[in-house]
């Protein structure tokens, strides 16, 4: 006997269905909810979707590659600014031109910054991403002729999709962002579950070993860095459309730290975790803005402390355990693997 042959796990159609249930449930929730609530809640849900994309992009380099970035809002900001400038200054109305161009621009900036940031690791990676983020912020403030400085760019229209006779309303835009979120989710999921994605997790856990196995770990990290930047750029672009204005603060340290918080709240080891984090933080911000707007930063700080001291692993992992308990309680599926 030469060893144990590894057979792919065969799942019956019933098990397949159980595995898909959370997705069907989540999708139903996300599609039905915006239809049932008033407009002001719809805009809040749109914001959740935008930040879900942003947080998922950070999780690719943080949770899956082990690189803690304190300047991820730089790419969010580049995506938002490039889109806003193309539309308001150069009058490129069509989304099919301005959208891909801003995504391309974000990718190029991420490629340039990645070369600098990935020269170093650990604490220094954190510091250099913080400084690079700060650099983008200062460019946004100082390059007044292009970015309107600290006034911000105003009057960014909702994307022109080129459909005849189509006019936007809050519900349509909410579904548009949801559609983009679903596409990003699927793309990132495919990346994470590909050989490339597993190599990234190998780099996170055992970089020297991966190097011994012949992987060019630097290249893997670099590509992950660029992909994460691109998805953050998509989120930034959607955010500029959502708000209609884009401001240097949207590319500042505060934005970078809020998205870190979303990921840690949801859980870095769960693929869907950042979405949970985005929901929690956007909801919290909404309620804080109703009852104690001036104390929001303090509440946010308290959430950081609580998340670190008491919520190890994030909410996501508790949800998965709860789900397993529900399923295994019926005795139908054993060892339902977290998705």
């Amino acid at each position, binding site marked *: 006997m030469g060893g144990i042959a590894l057979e792919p796990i065969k799942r019956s159609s019933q098990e397949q269905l159980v595995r898909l249930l959370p997705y069907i449930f989540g999708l139903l929730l996300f599609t039905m909810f915006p239809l049932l609530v008033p407009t002001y809640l719809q805009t809040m849900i749109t914001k959740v979707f935008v930040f879900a994309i942003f947080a998922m992009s950070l999780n690719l380099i943080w949770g899956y590659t082990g690189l803690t970035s304190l300047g991820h809002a730089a790419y969010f900001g580049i995506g938002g600014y490039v889109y806003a400038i193309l539309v308001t200054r150069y009058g490129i109305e069509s989304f099919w031109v301005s959208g891909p161009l801003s995504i391309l621009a974000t990718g190029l900036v991420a490629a340039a910054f990645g070369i600098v940031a990935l020269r170093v690791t650990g604490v220094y990676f*954190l510091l250099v991403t*913080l*400084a690079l983020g700060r650099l983008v912020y200062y460019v946004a403030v100082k390059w007044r002729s292009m970015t309107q400085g600290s006034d911000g760019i105003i009057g960014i229209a909702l994307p022109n999709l080129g459909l005849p006779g189509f006019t936007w309303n809050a519900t349509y835009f909410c579904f548009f962002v949801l559609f983009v979120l679903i596409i990003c989710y699927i793309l990132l999921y495919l990346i994470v579950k590909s050989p490339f994605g597993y190599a990234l997790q190998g780099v996170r856990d055992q970089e020297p070993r991966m190097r011994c196995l012949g992987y060019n770990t630097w290249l893997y990290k670099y590509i992950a860095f660029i992909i994460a930047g691109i998805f953050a750029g998509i989120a930034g672009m959607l955010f500029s459309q959502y708000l209609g204005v884009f401001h240097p603060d949207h590319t500042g340290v505060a934005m970078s730290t809020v998205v870190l*918080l979303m990921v840690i709240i949801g859980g870095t080891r769960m693929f869907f975790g950042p979405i949970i984090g985005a929901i929690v933080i956007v909801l919290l911000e909404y309620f804080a803005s109703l009852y104690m707007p001036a104390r929001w*930063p303090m509440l946010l*700080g*308290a959430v950081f*402390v609580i998340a670190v001291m008491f919520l190890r692993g994030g909410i996501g992992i508790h949800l998965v355990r709860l789900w397993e308990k529900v399923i295994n309680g019926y005795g139908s599926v054993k060892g339902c693997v977290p998705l």
Partner: protein
Amino acid sequence: MSLMAIHLLNGISFGMILFLLSMGFSLTLGLMGILNLTHGAMFMVGGFIGYTVVGAGGNFLVAVLSGSIAAGLIGLVIERLFLRRIYNRLDDQVLLTLGLVYIFENVILWIYGGHGRMTNPPPFMAFTVDIGGRSFPGYRLGVIAVGLIAFIGLWWLIDRTRIGAIVRAGMDDNEMTRGLGINHELIYGAVFALGAFAGGFSGAIGTPMMSFIFSMPMEVLLYALIVVVVGGPGSVLGTLIGALVIGMIDALGKAFIPDLASFTIYIVLIIMLLFRPTGLMGRTMA
């Protein structure tokens, strides 16, 4: 020529403030491996408490002392209550201390409002010195003197005393130091409190030189980070050199290229990290 001398002196005096600020940050990072992002907030707290004491009619020296002691106590509480539980967990330290920065900023905003605050120099230092026909505030010369005294004191403490030897040994081989029976809990708590004290002290003596506002901690922190990256963590002389270099670049940048002054220190940081990530005088970091 005298204008250049003024700019250089401004840079040196700002560099001395940066030295005191960064020394605390460098000690906690070098010895304990803790990335304490609240350090900028300690600077701010020290400054605002000094401002309050001076405003209430207190002596300037009392103000400086109370500002730095308050910051030291806050640091001690943070270390005992939170950071002690998350040694060696860099991500958690970053998130926790970031959260605390938000809290400090908001408390200061709550108490003092959104305006910048400054104090006057104490009466015994409110003179000006004539340098080539231009006047230079005597207070800044005083800050340079205080910085030099602190440098000698810290250098003596770290390089020449038993406590300093324990601290340096802890940086190089933490487990071995503990194995030799050194009470590392006590040393860690004391070093962290000393670091926060230095942050508060630099803030309190900085109040006559710059405007203090609730939103400053991250900006201040970045200066400390860059000084430590340039000088190398854990080295007293390295921190002094790094602080003077950054103080000078900052002052000259603001004087000659005001439009680009915000970028200069970041560009220095990026160049340093690319070509000499251990810093000019750096001990290697684990």
